[in-house]
């Protein structure tokens, strides 16, 4: 009995020690997290909550607004420019995400192979990434200027007609997509390059022994092995595309008409030009919900696909 009691006491002490240890570890974990949590709370969660509050108000930019419930959201539902901007954002995302990832992966494979002066090529491709979006868009303005831009001059010189990059809706949208690709492909390439460098060469060797062609090696070895990179890039590119602002704002200012207006430029227009900040906050909240929904879907959808093997 006493032996049992002794064992019980020892077991109880061990359990208490274990709990204390776990408690201490939890405390230490939270201590490490605290600086980030405080910064995230102050600069992300509180502003998001605040924006949600403003989205329920009618404001003129100054002083306290009037609470109007969900009227701003009802206005959004009736606003054709909002729907056009939402459609443009979706189209932009549908084009940018696969194109930037596809080109990024292709270039990464190329740069990962034995290519002369690949360091130089890598630098050239990554260079736009280190320039701000505004500067990139300004370069885009020089390239896509309808009258005096480099591209139209080249097209005219080669006997092809000039393209209405600034006055044609579809061409203006294409110019935004092209400049964005130029800016974003480098980032995608870097992530894929890092992923590729973790792939064991033996996998390719065994595939070759099994008679796999270059395409089959790419399709059945490379693509699955860079699955985690693909998942990461998918999330990052969708979020980026939903939030695109600087390139559109500088390159086309949402025009001609509303043909390149996206949700963030429309929110900016309402929030900082018209100073209808309640309405702008409502657009922001819709954008947040869309981004969270897509990210959650990707997360769920990709769980089975981002595992190698």
């Amino acid at each position, binding site marked *: 009995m006493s032996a049992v009691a002794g064992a019980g006491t020892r077991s109880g002490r061990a359990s208490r020690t274990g709990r204390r*240890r776990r408690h201490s570890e939890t405390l*230490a974990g939270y201590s490490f997290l605290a600086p980030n949590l405080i910064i995230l709370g102050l600069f992300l969660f509180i502003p998001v909550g605040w924006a949600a509050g403003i989205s329920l108000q009618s404001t003129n930019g*100054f002083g306290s607004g009037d609470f109007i419930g969900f009227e701003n959201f009802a206005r959004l539902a009736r606003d054709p420019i909002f729907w056009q901007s939402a459609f443009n954002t979706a189209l932009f995302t549908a084009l940018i995400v696969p194109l930037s990832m596809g080109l990024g992966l292709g270039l990464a494979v190329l740069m990962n192979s034995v290519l002369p002066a690949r360091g130089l090529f890598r630098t050239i491709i990554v260079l736009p990434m280190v320039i701000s979006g505004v500067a990139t868009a300004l370069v885009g303005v020089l390239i896509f200027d309808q009258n*005096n831009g480099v591209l139209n001059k080249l097209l005219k010189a080669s006997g092809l007609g000039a393209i209405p990059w600034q006055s044609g809706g579809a061409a203006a949208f294409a110019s935004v997509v092209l400049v964005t690709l130029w800016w974003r492909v480098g980032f995608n390439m870097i992530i894929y390059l890092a992923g590729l460098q973790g792939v064991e060469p033996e996998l390719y060797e065994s595939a070759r022994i099994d008679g796999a062609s270059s395409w089959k090696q790419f399709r059945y070895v490379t693509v699955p092995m860079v699955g985690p990179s693909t998942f990461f890039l998918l999330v990052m590119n969708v979020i980026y595309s939903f939030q695109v602002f600087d390139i559109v704002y500088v390159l086309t200012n949402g025009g*001609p008409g509303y043909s390149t207006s996206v949700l963030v430029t429309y929110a900016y227009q309402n929030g*900082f*030009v018209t*100073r*209808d900040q309640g309405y702008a906050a409502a657009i922001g909240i819709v954008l947040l919900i869309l981004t969270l929904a897509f990210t959650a879907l990707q997360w769920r959808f990709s769980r089975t696909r981002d595992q190698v093997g």
Partner: protein
Amino acid sequence: MTMDLNRRQLLGLAGTLGGVAALSGCAGFSRPDTATGADELTFTTWGSDSELLGFEQAIAAFEESNPGAKVTLNVVPFAQMFENIDAQLQSGTAPDIFRVDYDNLGVYSGRGQLLDLGPYIDDAVGNQFTDQMWRAVQFDGAPYGVPHHTDTSTILYNKDAFAAAGITAVPDTLESAWTWEEFDQVATTLRGQLSDDRYPFAYNWQASGVTRWLSWLFQADGRFLADDLMTPAIDSAAGRAAVDFTKGFFPRRLVPENSSVKSSTFASDIFFSETSTMTFAGAFLLPDAAKLAPFEWGATFSPRNKRGGGDLGGNALVATSETTKPELAAEFLTFMTREETMFNFCVGASLLPTLKSLVGEDLPFAERGDLATYFVQQASNVRPDDAAQIASPAMAAINTVLSDELEQAFIGGQSTDDTIANITAGITEATSR
């Protein structure tokens, strides 16, 4: 192990304290811009190099004539100016003084953000300014700023291109300015002479310049706000004439397709690159034109129709309602608009004065001072009634409506009737907000 845990706890605690300390440091971000010293003012502005030099010299002169007074100049890029000011006003950290264009002034004065200068300045001060400029800084009959300078658009033209098209003379007095019909005839003649990739003119309504379209409306003797400055008044024969006339520039290829109101290409750049033979431009562009236009160019007046009309460019200086030194702020604003201070500033930066006493003076601009008279005379076409409409608190929202609807009219195929109806609806919404 115990030691290990203690070390972790210690590190965690250090991390927490470090984070808190870092965040405490961040409090510096929200330091009020309002100067704390009794004789100190903060002044936020944007500006070109010559404008900033003018401000620095004026501040030095103010400090010299007011011993103990100190004005701290904060310079921000124009693109961020009003976002910053809005945020600072909302958070109670605004500067004592800031520079503001006449389109935006009403947004602040109409929402209680500016100091009513009435109690702090002599009644006679208002009489020193031209009527239209003094009207431009008022809201509900009270002055909420001082008109520091103005600017307006005239036509700059390429002399060689005009000679090639057989146009040998341009109007050299305000009274003989081209009528709309004459201007249209000149543009049509040029169109017939120019190659396909060149255009008769470009109008400067791009970016935030859409207010400049109103010059056409004023020339047609129209208005966009009724006398109460709330009711839309653009649904008129004058409104339709202005939309019809300007809309016609695009299909007739009198202006480049990419020069509509939302374009990222400025009219002046189109002119400098010889894509257009004329541009509408403010006096502030004279130094750029002298440097960038690789051809001989001159100036003439903007067209007139039922009357002459021009845009209300330039900027005012205002004090914020939360300033703790209203007397000093008013004294500084008065000093900045004294005859000598204004003259030096305007001459240095190629801008137009707002004091009646300076309107007839020669302005020896550093570049093309010979053309200053065109701008000064053109500015006299702006009427106090025009200025009152532009100083409306709803002007920022009205600008968005104009930009959206004129873009649709110019290159979206929207009819004049729909454009007028949509602008009317937009103004109603903007003024009721």
